[in-house]
């Protein structure tokens, strides 16, 4: 949560990052790079979703990958077993994931901290177990293939580049909605509950409603991300949705800046690419993350976003001081 940043600066940083993401496919244009970029956007949506619960409302529920699995499978099933279009899959994913998220938010009314974290791990394990073992519905460990691609005005989104821009539009809309929510009454209610739940109740905030709303919003965001992911991959199986992948989302948010939407975007973007760069290390890349997290927490608990904000201030002060100096001379 770290330090505060004015809205204007936050908006500018978010805008710049989105512009960079918009041109990224032309800076990195081979097939592999564009494939990775698609995953970057999916992760950006997921980390913004996690930020609603963990960053804004301060609830240590870390079940993102469980919701992501549910959401991906809903779109997969709707477009294959039911044979409906991607858009129906998207709608179903959003609704069903939001409902699941709401239900898993209910225990936060009684549990907190450690117990909540433990419960999220249990949720993830149960979810992947169900996906593996309910073969009649999910096809078990073999997964589901031939998931439908989106069709827009009769045009099939087939290439990675087209898919990237579809995801980019959705990501941008979701990111902007997230900061609008942050600045609204609801955003203030989330943060009040996070800072001091009792004090929040005393100023008239219904903490129960606030927490559940954060979970529902998170579910909606994961719903969109999962639908896009399933459709982009065209094939999904339970082993993608691992606890290890889940811990990456937390790393992304903490390193980018807990409680900050542009921080979530930056963290997800940098770490998704870093993971690709570190592929040669196999599982040991997590070691690098651990070190980066520790350094972040020691030197800048607010994450990269705070560091970025301070850098901008520093540059600005340099730029404005120079002319005055000249005048004095």
């Amino acid at each position, binding site marked *: 949560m770290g330090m505060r940043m004015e809205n204007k600066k936050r908006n500018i940083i978010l805008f710049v990052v989105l512009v960079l993401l918009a041109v990224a496919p032309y800076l990195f244009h081979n097939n592999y790079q564009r494939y990775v970029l698609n995953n970057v956007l999916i992760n950006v949506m997921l980390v913004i979703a996690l930020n609603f619960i963990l960053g804004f409302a301060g609830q240590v529920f870390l079940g993102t990958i469980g919701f992501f699995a549910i959401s991906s499978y809903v779109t997969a099933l709707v477009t294959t077993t039911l044979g409906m279009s991607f858009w129906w899959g998207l709608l179903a994913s959003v609704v069903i994931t939001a409902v699941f998220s709401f239900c898993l938010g209910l225990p936060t009314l009684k549990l907190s901290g450690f117990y909540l974290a433990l419960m999220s791990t249990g949720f993830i394990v149960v979810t992947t177990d169900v996906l593996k073992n309910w073969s009649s519905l999910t096809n078990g460990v073999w997964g589901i293939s031939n998931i439908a691609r989106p069709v827009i005005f009769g045009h099939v989104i087939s290439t990675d580049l087209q898919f990237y821009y579809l995801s980019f539009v959705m990501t941008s809309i979701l990111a902007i909605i997230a900061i609008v929510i942050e600045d609204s009454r609801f955003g203030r209610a989330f943060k009040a509950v996070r800072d001091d739940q009792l004090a929040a109740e005393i100023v*008239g905030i219904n903490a129960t409603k606030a927490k559940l709303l954060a979970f529902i919003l998170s579910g909606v965001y994961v719903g969109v991300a999962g639908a896009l992911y399933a459709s982009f991959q065209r094939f999904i199986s339970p082993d993608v949705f691992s606890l290890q992948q889940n811990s990456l989302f937390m790393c992304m948010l903490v390193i980018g800046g807990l409680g900050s939407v542009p921080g979530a975007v930056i963290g997800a973007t940098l770490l998704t690419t870093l993971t690709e760069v570190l592929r040669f290390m196999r599982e040991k890349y997590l070691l690098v993350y651990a070190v980066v997290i520790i350094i972040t927490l020691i030197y800048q608990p607010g994450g990269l976003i705070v560091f970025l904000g301070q850098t901008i201030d520093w540059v600005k002060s340099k730029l404005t001081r120079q002319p005055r100096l000249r005048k004095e001379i």
Partner: protein
Amino acid sequence: MALLELKDVSASYGAIQALFNLSLSVNSGEIVCLIGANGAGKTTAVRTITGTLPITSGEIRFNGEQISGQRSSAIVRAGIACVPEGRRVFPEMTILENLEIGGFITRKDREKSQAIVDYVLDTFPVLKERRNQAAGTLSGGEQAMLVLGRAMMSQPKLMVLDEPSMGLAPVIVEKAFDVIKNINEQGTAILLVEQNANMALAISTRGYVLEGGEVKLEGSAEELKSSEMVRKLYLGGS
């Protein structure tokens, strides 16, 4: 009809009963104080009024409506604001944001909200200077001012203050009490919980003395000031 009325209210923390058939009332326009030693049950009484602790028997009425059993948010909306024990500012929010969130339930009257913000900032220049700083960086005394301002923001009919003078320097206590009097003169009734019986009785119309979760004594401020028991226990003897 009293604005706030507690009738035979009992409350417990698990197996420990902390309030025994507490009855008290606050009329419109009044300042009523609730005094008592550490552990007497003052904060417990405040918690039952603000809905943060359920009562086990009795009833609490506000403006004629039963509020016991309702959520805190509903009680704030009904018109009760509270300065809780230990203040509890939102440490990560700025001073201005802390004030604004005090008006969370009053969306209607923006002009009045702004007027209250201005009043609070003008009354406490320290807060004005630092209005864009995180409230967690304020001193204890400054936080006390801020929370008083935050409680005003919901434009309540009744304000419940749990030891607003705790840990304040005497000059600041006086200033805080001036503000409380001022709030009262604007038409807000006040239930003032205090250890500082001297100061509390000086601005109150009536008072209650709590001991072991029960009312031991009640009466007008004058009566309490001259009562042997209050003099011995809370006003430093003589």
